């Protein structure tokens, strides 16, 4: 006689009157495949945990976003935000699709060059650019977005000394009606600082002002804030044309569009509440098109979107290490990946689904990572089927920031795999070893001999 499929025994107290009107969300629909490749075989072949990136989804996201903007506005250029995910394979997919590079550090700049991006298609943002990096960017004809006066004057000096005329923009910060106001980067619009910087650049013989840039925040949920930002950049662009008879080539509205992840503390899931790219595109392009620019003087619209283009292309697959019960009776499930790998668990309630079929019973649980640290919590409360040691789980929408902000802490970082358009798998970053970790460590000679007798 065939045996009945096993699940561990549970008993649950029945409560009434405690549910919210939407009920608790239960993720018991198993996700057994990523782009037609079985999760089980991925974990068998490449180890657990494992980051998986779908090339198909990246391209789908990019093509969708460009279509949305290009059907509304004639001149649109995306620049891939390296800090969101600077795995070279990922960057190259974006570059193949036509995306420029947007970098915020010297090594990101070098990565972009290494990925075959011509210097004149690299946007160099951020407050930290050394003289050496500024010179390299100027010589490569890159777009240098100036963050502060110290940088502005350094660049003027370097350009004079080296007889260069770099193409520059300034980053403008402004009140767009949202909180917190990001005023730590760039020059302020309202207090006239931005106009002063513009005047200084235009009066300099060694800098060419070609655009204006802003980046109003991250995970922005209000398209109207982008309309305000676009209006203020258009006002500056218009004023520059009026006062100096200079037509700027572009305005760059930065990034900040949200993915469909659910922020911690949100009442409803992100997939139900986050505005679509269409809404952001409407807000931005309506302003620029309605501002009164002559058709031939319409600025190129640059967007530095990161998260919205990559988050749902990334998955983290993992395995249950153990289950236990906490002192208050709640179930605790310990996974083989923690906040060191899944950094975004600090601000999202990530969707987590089982990777194999289960029975109908579920239980509320806490998902812990494997770190010997109390803060290592993947989900504080989630309802899942009855998990056992060895079961596999899939964490969704992890493509943004995890593969750049992850930490080598207690455990080593796992493999990152890309599934290509033909569903073939490619390791794009090998899992770390102790040798990798210690490669840059040096031991002083007096400590070379082991002294523990």
């Amino acid at each position, binding site marked *: 006689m065939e045996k009945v499929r096993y699940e561990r025994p549970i008993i649950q*107290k029945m409560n009434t009157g405690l549910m919210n009107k939407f009920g608790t969300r239960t993720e018991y629909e198993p996700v057994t495949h990523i782009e037609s490749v079985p999760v089980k075989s991925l974990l068998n072949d490449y180890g657990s945990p494992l980051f998986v990136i779908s090339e198909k989804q990246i391209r789908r996201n990019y093509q969708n976003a460009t279509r949305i903007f290009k059907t509304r506005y004639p001149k649109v250029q995306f620049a891939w935000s390296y800090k969101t995910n600077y795995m070279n394979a990922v960057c190259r997919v974006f570059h193949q699709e036509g995306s420029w590079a947007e970098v915020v550090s010297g090594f990101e700049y070098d990565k972009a060059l290494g990925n075959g991006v011509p210097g004149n298609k690299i946007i160099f943002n951020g407050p930290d650019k050394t003289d050496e990096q500024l010179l390299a960017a100027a010589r490569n004809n890159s777009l240098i977005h100036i963050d502060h006066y110290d940088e502005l004057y350094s660049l003027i000096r370097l350009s004079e000394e080296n007889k260069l005329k770099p193409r520059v923009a300034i980053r403008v910060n402004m009140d767009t009606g949202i909180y917190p106001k990001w005023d730590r980067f760039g020059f302020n619009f309202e207090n006239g600082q931005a106009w002063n910087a513009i005047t200084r650049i235009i009066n300099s013989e060694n800098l060419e002002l070609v655009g204006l840039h802003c980046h109003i925040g991250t995970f922005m949920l209000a398209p109207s804030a982008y309309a305000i930002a676009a209006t203020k950049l258009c006002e500056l662009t218009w004023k520059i044309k009026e006062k100096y008879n200079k037509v700027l080539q572009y305005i760059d509205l930065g990034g900040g569009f949200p993915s469909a992840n659910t922020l911690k503390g949100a009442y409803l899931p992100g997939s139900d509440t986050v505005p679509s790219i269409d809404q952001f595109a409407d807000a931005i392009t309506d302003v620029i098109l309605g501002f009164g620019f002559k058709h031939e003087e319409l600025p190129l619209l640059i967007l530095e979107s990161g998260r919205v283009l990559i988050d749902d292309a990334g998955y983290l697959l993992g395995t249950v290490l153990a289950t236990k019960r906490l002192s208050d009776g709640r179930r605790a499930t310990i996974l083989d990946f923690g906040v060191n790998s899944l950094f975004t668990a600090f601000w999202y309630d990530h969707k987590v689904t089982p990777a194999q079929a289960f029975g109908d019973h579920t239980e509320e649980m806490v998902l812990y990572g494997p770190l010997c640290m109390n803060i290592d919590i993947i989900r504080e409360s989630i309802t899942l089927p009855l998990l056992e040691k060895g079961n596999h789980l899939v964490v969704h929408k992890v493509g943004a920031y995890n593969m750049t902000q992850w930490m080598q802490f207690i455990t080593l970082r796992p493999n990152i795999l890309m599934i290509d358009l033909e569903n073939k798998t490619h390791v794009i970053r090998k899992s770390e070893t102790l040798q990798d970790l210690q490669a840059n460590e040096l031991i002083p000679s007096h400590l070379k001999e082991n002294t523990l007798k």
Partner: protein
Amino acid sequence: MKLKKNIATSEEGFIFNPGTGDSFSANPIGTDIISLLKDNKPLETIVEIICDKYDVDQSQFIKDLDDFESQLKDYGILE
């Protein structure tokens, strides 16, 4: 592991404690175990019967049975 005498159970997994008024539901295997406890079966017999019926090895089930016992204790169902 001994069930309180006044605990009422149904074949569908509904459990009622008339002493406290609390109601509980168990999954099928939990219901089987409670039913065996109600019949005063010793632990060894419970392990044998369950491992015979379900696709599980004995060590795994004994571990899970420990966990189930602590759930029953927490809910005040055991003597």
